């Protein structure tokens, strides 16, 4: 049998029952558009989480940058004293790394440290980060370039500018910590910590501002100060890590392999580990996994609805064409070939649904993206954001395939009906 002819018969049958075909296509395409829009929202969320991880982070350690360089020992061994396995000659390391790849836009040294902070009356523990504010601003300007939807993103940049302009012994406090210590801009506090020699050291600091870490629980313990203040407290000239900021997050793997090979082939530098952002992004991966499960479940439900709708159309079509099916069987056409005709009908419904679904998806995406819906902060975070739907191009081929399979397979159901049909009875069916 000529498949083209079967396809023609199938297409003409769909045309003959145009009202039913249109309803089925509308149901299927609405399902397609719904999944595609959810896919686009997921893509937007994943992108936002990815860039948020790189620029701001979800822990007291701040943004991960695109790549981090640390001493291998700091991962493999337990430190006996703070920064035992820190990077000592970090200026030299930074300079050499910058030349490795033109996609490296900035290198940012950081110190992570802990201790107690006191206002004289009350003390509380802190998770501190020693930074070079001007360099951290580079990470934020990267954030500005790629992600303009976070509603209150600029406030953090302003605070970091204050830190850059303040005296060397200035600190930024997390909102929760400032509240606990009744501290405000200009308040004097004491930082207590352990030096690299194991002694206790105290540094007087002034509050330069209150910072919002996005995650409320972290705000209670969060503190940022200059790298000099942190080094002064710990009596060291080392840093914990060096962050690399690239032109684009997509360049991470390319630059990673270049930096990994060069940094460990330059003699004395074989002691470094080069870690991409996604290996430090536990929160990002857990949210992504959760979204995938939710999306998959929603997708299954929608596909089921599409399948049932298409199956209903196919079975109705079979019922209405009992005599035609009986005639074909009487002519010696096998059940398989007759079912094939219905498979083609399902296939065409799928194709039409994809085309209409794509149009619906574009229409709704345009409307949503231009409506600037303000979304509430995600769980545990304090920043609102504007809802955006991305193209969802990663998901579209899969959604299309799923829809096409679902509508085509609904045609397959007719085989059971066709097989059961008595030729004699169907020839006289009215």
């Amino acid at each position, binding site marked *: 049998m000529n498949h083209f*002819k079967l396809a023609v018969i199938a297409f*003409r049958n769909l045309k003959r029952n145009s009202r039913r075909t249109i309803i089925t296509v509308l149901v299927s395409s609405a399902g397609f558009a719904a999944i595609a829009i959810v896919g686009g929202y997921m893509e937007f969320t994943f992108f936002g989480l990815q860039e948020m991880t790189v620029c701001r982070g979800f822990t007291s350690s701040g943004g991960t940058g695109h790549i981090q360089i640390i001493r291998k020992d700091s991962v493999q061994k337990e430190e006996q004293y703070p920064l035992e396995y820190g990077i000592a000659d970090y200026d030299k390391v930074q300079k050499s790394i910058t030349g490795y790849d033109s996609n490296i836009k900035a290198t940012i040294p950081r110190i992570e440290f802990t201790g107690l902070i006191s206002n004289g009356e009350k003390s509380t523990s802190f998770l501190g980060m020693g930074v070079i504010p001007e360099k951290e601003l580079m990470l934020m300007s990267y954030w500005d370039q790629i992600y303009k939807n976070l509603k209150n993103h600029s406030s953090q940049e302003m605070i970091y500018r204050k830190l850059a302009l303040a005296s060397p012994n200035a600190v930024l406090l997390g909102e929760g910590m400032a509240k606990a210590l009744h501290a405000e801009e200009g308040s004097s506090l004491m930082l207590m910590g352990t030096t690299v020699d194991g002694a206790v050291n105290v540094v007087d600091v002034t509050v330069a501002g209150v910072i919002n870490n996005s995650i409320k629980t972290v705000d209670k313990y969060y503190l940022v100060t200059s790298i000099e203040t942190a080094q002064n407290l710990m009596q060291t000239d080392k840093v914990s890590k060096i962050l690399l900021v690239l032109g684009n997050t997509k360049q991470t793997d390319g630059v990673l392999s270049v930096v990994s090979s060069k940094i460990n082939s330059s003699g004395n530098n074989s002691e470094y580990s080069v870690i991409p952002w996604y290996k430090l992004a536990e929160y990002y991966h857990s949210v992504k996994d959760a979204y995938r499960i939710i999306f998959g479940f929603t997708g299954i439900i929608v596909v089921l609805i599409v399948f049932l709708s298409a199956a209903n159309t196919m079975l109705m079509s079979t019922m209405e064409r009992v005599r035609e099916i009986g005639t*074909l069987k*009487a*002519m*010696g056409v*096998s059940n398989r*070939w007759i079912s094939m005709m219905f498979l083609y009908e399902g296939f065409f419904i799928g194709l039409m649904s994809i085309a209409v679904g794509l149009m619906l998806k574009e229409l709704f995406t345009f409307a949503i993206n231009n409506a600037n819906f303000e979304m509430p902060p995600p769980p545990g975070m304090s920043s609102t954001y504007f809802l955006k739907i991305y193209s969802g191009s990663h998901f579209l081929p899969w959604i299309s395939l799923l829809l096409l399979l679902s509508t085509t397979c609904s045609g397959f159901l007719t085989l059971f009906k066709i097989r059961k049909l008595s*030729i*004699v009875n169907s020839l006289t069916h009215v």
Partner: protein
Amino acid sequence: MNESVVAKLTDVSKYYGNGEGRIAALDNISFNVKKGDFIVLAGLSGSGKSTLLHLLGCIDKPDKGQIIIDGQDTTMMNLEQLAPVRMEKIGFVFQSFNLVPVLTAYENVELPLLFKGLDRKKIKNRVNEILDELGLQERKGHFPGEMSGGQQQRVAIARALVTSPAIVLADEPTANLDSKTGADIVNLLVELNEKKNITVVLASHDSVVLDRIKNIVTIKDGKII
């Protein structure tokens, strides 16, 4: 088996219902159809003539007896296995024409050949040949809904003949036609039988048919009388 016998039924019975309510639609019928025969199965409604036609056409199975079509014993085959037998050896003409409504006259006639898997050129030649013979060339682009009952039945006959079957079975082919068109259709079948030696078995109780055809097999209560 005599080569001129196209269909041979031996002690064929067909029952409907179960137990005491069982009715014999056909009761031990033995019956031969020879090459070139034009046989009319006559009888009242419910006499069993359509059942006999269905068994001859391999679209139903007997409960007892043996049916041989063009030398092939169909007794042990199920209806799906009989599909190739129907495709190769049998042509059907139905009371309600049973054309595929979304296909043109040409496409309806072409359909059995497409399922047989012939090449396009052979199909085209054969379809045009049969449409010429039946005077349907001018109607070949029309859909069934655009044709009269007589024209639709001609297309149905063309579809039945296009595969050059061993036997053409027609079930009340004139019942849905007015008497003049019915007579035309019967004349066409007779003409094809006489000129092309096509074997025809026709079930009818229409006087137009019974007056025209001499070879009548009358069935009553499932038996040939």
